[in-house]
């Protein structure tokens, strides 16, 4: 809870820091703010608190999820640079502040106990992201992405909100447990049909936010158009928060109608896995490939949600952590590589831009390779354990229910190998420019850190898993 309040204050503080002449303070200050919020977050470890008349609840699950969100935000901010050098068009203080605000929204989505909080958290997160998507004001693509993201996003919000209204009509409450007791208590008149419709609408809205097929159509364009830094931010923080919220909502409120949403979710899962992975194969831009890969990872995460075993939350946590770290690394390398040789003033994000990366900067190539291997789910990396835990939940739920999904997931992880390895092929097996790429110390530190984390979690998953 303290973390939410402090982040809001830090965001405002950050805006004031923008008045300072020296821009140097901003980045360290923002990093410090996030670290402080992280520490504040940990204070509540092993305590259960409920705030504001059942609006918000913090427990260890909340702290775990928000720690992952704060960690990824920290990493994203650390790899951010001066958002362009053009004084007139850049307002780094504002972007940092908006990022902090969006994290507030994400944390509210993780800890909500009331649908009002979920809605507000979701909106804070989304509206901030609309702005961040369009932050590269001179780029047509960024503008277009922002417009598309906004229209699609608010469309989803409308559906989501209508769903909430219907659920409210059926149950007379926005409180998660109250809805839960209505659903599983079996009201004498039977569950109102409004609830079913409402649940489906809410699901559609949430699935849209985590970009699961068939609600994923906005993802590639928006991820492609947005500045890469914010693409990294979107594809990690939103996904983690979205899945935390989705899981919480479905298990606390709608366990009673598991039979209904399980069917919907398994269908969506299969579709998401198929669409995400198969389309990713055909991309010629690494950024778009990563966009589709984020769709496909939403599919794996959905498996754990649909399985709904006691192990699901920790599986989701571990998967999100592994996925976030690897994705940030991938995007971090992409940012550096793409800006080496711009094409028509635009960063070169094609596979070809990675040719011969191993020669130009071995560290970049190695951390990229580790992150891709982790995303592909190969042992000794964190991503493998993520897949392992997720598949375990599915096997535990029972093969009659999840067998089909598992088969698809298995086949699709093989497809995944193909497109993730294309990047590795380009950077190690092909020859390209030989001009070395230099990196700043902080950037280097972050890459080393994420790579070490990915391998460390792959070797000793129990260290983190004990906390979950």
């Amino acid at each position: 809870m303290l973390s939410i309040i402090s982040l809001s204050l830090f965001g405002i503080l950050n805006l004031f820091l923008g008045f300072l002449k020296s821009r140097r303070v901003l980045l360290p200050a923002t990093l410090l703010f996030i670290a402080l919020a992280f520490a504040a977050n940990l204070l509540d470890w092993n305590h259960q608190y409920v705030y504001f008349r059942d609006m918000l609840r913090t427990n260890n699950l909340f702290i775990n999820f928000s720690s992952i969100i704060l960690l990824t935000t920290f990493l994203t901010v650390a790899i951010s640079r001066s958002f362009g050098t053009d004084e007139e068009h850049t307002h780094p203080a504002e972007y940092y502040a908006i990022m902090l605000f969006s994290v507030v929204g994400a944390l509210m989505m993780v800890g909500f106990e009331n649908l009002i909080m979920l809605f507000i958290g979701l909106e804070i997160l989304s509206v901030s992201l609309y702005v961040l998507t369009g932050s590269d004001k001179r780029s047509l693509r960024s503008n277009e992405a922002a417009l598309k993201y906004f229209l699609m996003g608010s469309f989803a919000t409308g559906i989501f909100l209508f769903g909430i209204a219907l659920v409210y009509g059926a149950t007379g409450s926005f409180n998660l447990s109250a809805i839960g007791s209505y659903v599983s208590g079996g009201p004498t008149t039977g569950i109102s049909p409004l609830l079913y419709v409402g649940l489906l609408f809410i699901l559609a809205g949430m699935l849209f936010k985590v970009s699961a097929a068939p609600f994923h159509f906005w993802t590639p364009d928006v991820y492609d158009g947005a500045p890469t830094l914010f693409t990294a931010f979107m594809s990690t923080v939103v996904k983690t928060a979205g899945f935390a919220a989705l899981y919480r909502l479905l298990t606390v409120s709608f366990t009673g109608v598991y039979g209904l949403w399980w069917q919907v979710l398994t269908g969506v899962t299969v579709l998401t896995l198929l669409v995400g992975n198969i389309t990713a194969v055909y991309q010629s831009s690494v950024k778009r490939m990563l966009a589709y890969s984020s769709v496909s990872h939403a599919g794996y995460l959905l498996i754990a949600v649909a399985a709904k075993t006691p192990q699901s939350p920790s599986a989701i946590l571990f998967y999100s952590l592994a996925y976030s770290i690897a994705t940030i690394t991938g995007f971090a390398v992409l940012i550096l590589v793409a800006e080496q040789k711009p094409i028509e003033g635009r960063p070169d994000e094609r596979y070809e831009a990675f040719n011969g990366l191993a020669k130009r900067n071995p560290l970049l190539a190695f951390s990229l390779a580790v992150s891709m291997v982790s995303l592909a789910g190969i042992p000794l990396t964190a991503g493998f354990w993520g897949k392992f835990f997720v598949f375990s939940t599915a096997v535990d739920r029972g093969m009659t229910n999840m067998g089909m999904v598992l088969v698809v997931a298995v086949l699709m992880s093989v497809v995944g190998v193909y497109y993730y390895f294309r990047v590795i092929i380009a950077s190690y097996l092909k020859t390209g420019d030989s001009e070395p790429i230099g990196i700043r110390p902080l950037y280097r530190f972050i890459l080393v850190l994420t790579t070490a984390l990915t391998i460390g979690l792959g070797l000793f998953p129990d260290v983190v898993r004990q906390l979950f």
Partner: protein
Amino acid sequence: MPVFYPLLAVNSAIPLSYFVLASAALFSIGLGVVVVKRNAIVVLMGVELMLNAANLNLVAFSRYDPDLKGQMFGLFVIVVAAAEAVVALAIVLLVYRRFQTVDLDEVNEMKR
């Protein structure tokens, strides 16, 4: 259905189902507008219709709720919608300045 709450008995002449139907109609119109229209501003209006349809529902249902939670939520929605509209108009303005159009089919830099 929640128990009928008799405080506002005067208005009870209009049954709840009318409100639900009206809001469903509003929602469908909004949805239709978003899907069919290509002008960004009009699409924006469609989205607003959808939000307001939900609002209408919230307020109507909250008549049966002693805590009036629905109305409170309604207020939040209005505030959020306003914030959203601000961002939206800023984005649309920016797009208009760059593309010289707000037609969604012509704002298509990505496919090029």
